[in-house]
Every structure is written in C-alpha cells, then in structure tokens.
C-alpha cells in the first residue's frame, strides 16, 4: 500500500488515494466553504472537524466508502459531494461501531 500525501498548506484536505471517494480534513472547515479535490470544486454542506471525512463525489446507498484505496464500510443513504461522511450515513461491513450516547446497529456501548 502506498499513500500519496499532498501537503495541506494550501488545501485543507487530504485525498489519500486516487480511488478514494472521500477526503480527510486537515483543518476544521465550515458550512459553505469551497475546497478543491483534484480539479473538482466542492462546497461543504455542513461544518466538519479535523480528521473527519467529506464526500468528494456523490455516493449511492450501499456503495463502498473508499479510503487509502480500500473499502472502510458502506453508505446507508445517498451522500452528496461535500457531505460529512460518518456514523449517520455509513456503516461498517464487519462490526457495528459504538459511541457514548447511542447504539449504532445493535450490540452494546463501550464506555
């Protein structure tokens, strides 16, 4: 696995692999902010924190979410370019994820 890292001084996201349909934020970004992925311009539909993912293309329900060029789960609904991609619109293909407050797709909550 090779990870191509672009420097983030000008662009506040990292698109880790050419096959990825998401990018990772390297700075907190706000609603309406416009960013560049490759030659495409996308506008954020919500505010997103450092380390979180945004869709850099439209993703259909059930489509694989690709990061590092590898699948990291599937979309549970339609996701538009510029949307925050997280527990509310994707899930693991292996095992449910847990948060402090809520159960996501069964199992217990790890505290």
């Amino acid at each position, binding site marked *: 696995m090779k990870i191509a890292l672009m420097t983030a001084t000008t662009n506040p996201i990292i698109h880790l692999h050419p096959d990825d349909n998401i990018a990772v934020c390297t700075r907190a970004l706000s609603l309406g902010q416009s960013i560049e992925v490759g030659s495409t311009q996308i506008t954020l539909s919500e505010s997103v924190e450092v380390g979180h993912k945004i869709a850099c293309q439209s993703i259909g329900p059930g489509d694989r979410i690709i990061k590092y060029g590898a699948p990291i789960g599937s979309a549970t609904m339609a996701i538009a370019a510029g949307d925050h991609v997280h527990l509310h619109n*994707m899930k693991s293909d292996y095992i449910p994820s847990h948060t402090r407050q809520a159960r996501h797709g069964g199992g217990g909550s790890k505290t």
Partner: protein
Amino acid sequence: MIGLQGIVRQDGRKGIRNVVCVVYLVECAHHVARLVVSKSQSDRVHLIGFPGCYPNDYSLRIMSQLTTHPNVGGVLLISLGCEGFNREALEATIRDSGRPVETLVIQSEGGTRRTVDAGLDRVRSLLEATENPELVPMGIDELVVGTICGGSDGTSGITANPAVGRCFDRLVAEHATCIFEETGELIGCEEIMSARAATPELATEINSAMAKAANYYAAMGYGSFAPGNAEGGLTTQEEKSMGAYSKSGSSRISGLIKPGDVPPSGGLFLLDVVPDGEPQFGFPNISDNAEIVELISSGCHLILFTTGRGSVVGSAISPVIKICANPETYDRMADDMDINAGKIIAGTASVGEVGNEIYDSVITIARGSESTSEALGHQEFLLTYKRFDAIGPACLPQR
C-alpha cells in the same frame, strides 16, 4: 550515528534499562508492593503484578518473560500467601536467568508493616546488586521495538502511523526486530497483510488469526472501537484498521507470534493478542497498557505509541515514545508527547522526515535519555487473564 550500548544478560540478550521489579502476585498484595515501591524513592524500581487469585498459565508465562526481560536487573516477589500464583516456579525461572530475586510472603512476614520494612530492605540490596552494570556495544540488530496506537482519530492513520511505518522499514532494513500487533485492530486488512507474508503457509496462519479476531469480536458484540475514535472522525473498525495497519510499514512479514514469544531473528513480526479458544474472560484487549505489556513480554526494549486524541501513558520495564498525530492535540498536550507528527498535516514535514525523527528518538532513548512518559513517572502496567495455544511451525518460517 553513535552506536548503542546495553547490559548483557545471561541469555545473551541486552537491556537498555536496568529495572528492579517489585511484583505483587495477587491483588491482596498490591498495596504492600506499592508501598515498597513508593518508599524506595527510586525511579529504577517499578511496580508490576497480577491481580487474580485463580492460577492461569498465560499470566505465569507472561510474568516469567517480563521478570527475565533484558531491561530487568532484579526482582522482588510479594505474595499474600494463599493465592494460586505459582511463586516457586516464577522465582526459580528468575534465579535460573542469573538475576537476583527475593520472595516475601505477607502472611509469614507478619502483615503489612513487617512486609513493607522487609521489602524495602530487599529492594535496597537489589538496587545495590544491580548498580553500575557493565555496558557493552549493542547493535541495531539486537534491538526489539514494538508499536501500538491508542486514542486514535482521523489523523492517526495519515500522519503518526505511516511515519512509524517508515521508521519500522528503516529498522527492519538494519535487521532490528519490529513487532506490530492487535489483529482485532487490523480487521479489514487481511488480504493486503497476508500478501506480505514471507511464505504462503505464514499467510494462511495470518488469515486464521484474523478470522479468530473477527469471530471473537462478533461473539463479544464489540470491535476495538472506542467512542473517542468516532468523535475524532473515524467511523468504522475497518477504517481504524487501515490507519493502524500503516504502522507496519512495507517490509515483508517474517512471522506471527503470540504474547511471550520472542522473535528468533530480526524482521517484522505480527503479534496476535486475541485469546485462543471460546471467547471468555472479557475483552481481548482490555486497554492499551495490556497490549504494551504483551509487546514487552515478547522482548520489546521500546514501544512506539501513536495517538491522535491524546494518551498520556507510559509503561513499567520499557520506555514508551509517544508520537502525536493530531496538531491540535499536540498543542494541548505537548508536555506528554515526544514527537509531533501533526507537522505532516500542517504541511511543514513529510511522512519520511517524521519517520526519521522517530528513528533518531529510538536511538537516543535506547542510549538512555528519558522519554517524556518516563520523565513524568508513568509506569502503567496491566496483566489480565487470557488463554493462548502455542504457535504452529508455519508461524516462524525463518527459525
């Protein structure tokens, strides 16, 4: 580059520290052991122990490996007297390793005060007996380095973890032994990982270990995924896995080991920490420090710990070097960090440059400089009940 120096032990391995361990053999002896350690007022005296009264082959084996670890010079065992831990076997193993060892039984000594007094006396003699050891030249190829991530977030897998991977590639190229671990945190990476195995038979063993981890987590209903991971932007186990996987670098995988197995040669090894048999006794990885203890039991002189959310832990016996992935976390918790890998997303350093910085830190700390967690007095330790079967011959093809 200035060479390393180590303390040569009877089994030929060399230590980069010279710790005196005070070991409680059941929770009932914990407080007495802790008093002995704190009253000794020496950074060289570390507290380790096992809480359970019921005997367990795994805990005896791990404790035997830890008390004969090259970083350990002498040992005081503290028993209540009625617990199931086989203190005679452990004492014999330590003595056979050429280390000074003493055992105190609280019920025979006559209670807390008498055992603490006797314990302090024994620790003073152990410190004296292990003072000013002879240092001999030590090659990079004699160094064993482990890695773990804790408190991961969306930055871990793009900064600190791939930088540790670069450091590992460099160490493996110089014939050091590098160990990455936690098959449960690698779920989703089976195929790309087994493709790096030295032999097809080892690839099969890696795939079996991964299937065991997936099965274990499915039975428990939990992944290795904490609430902070999601708050930091990670959504799924396999996303966290891909990030964790990048700590392994790109070297060939030379073997699959289990806790307490010391790799027979240099190279990159995967440590399987998920118990064998039917899922029992709770989580396979109760916390980061349980995994650090297992890495040390497999001979690690040093641990590279990457964190995004911000962990503060260190460890007994072997120094922990903390590599902070997230520049915002680094700003908040710089006093607890050794390396700022957040520079990578700030755009002021490359993955390779931070990898070299980690490598230099390994050498400096192996030569005796304190890591941040050592300087702050962190000596966390956790050993719990587990069960493992011995590894098969295909797991170590080079032996």
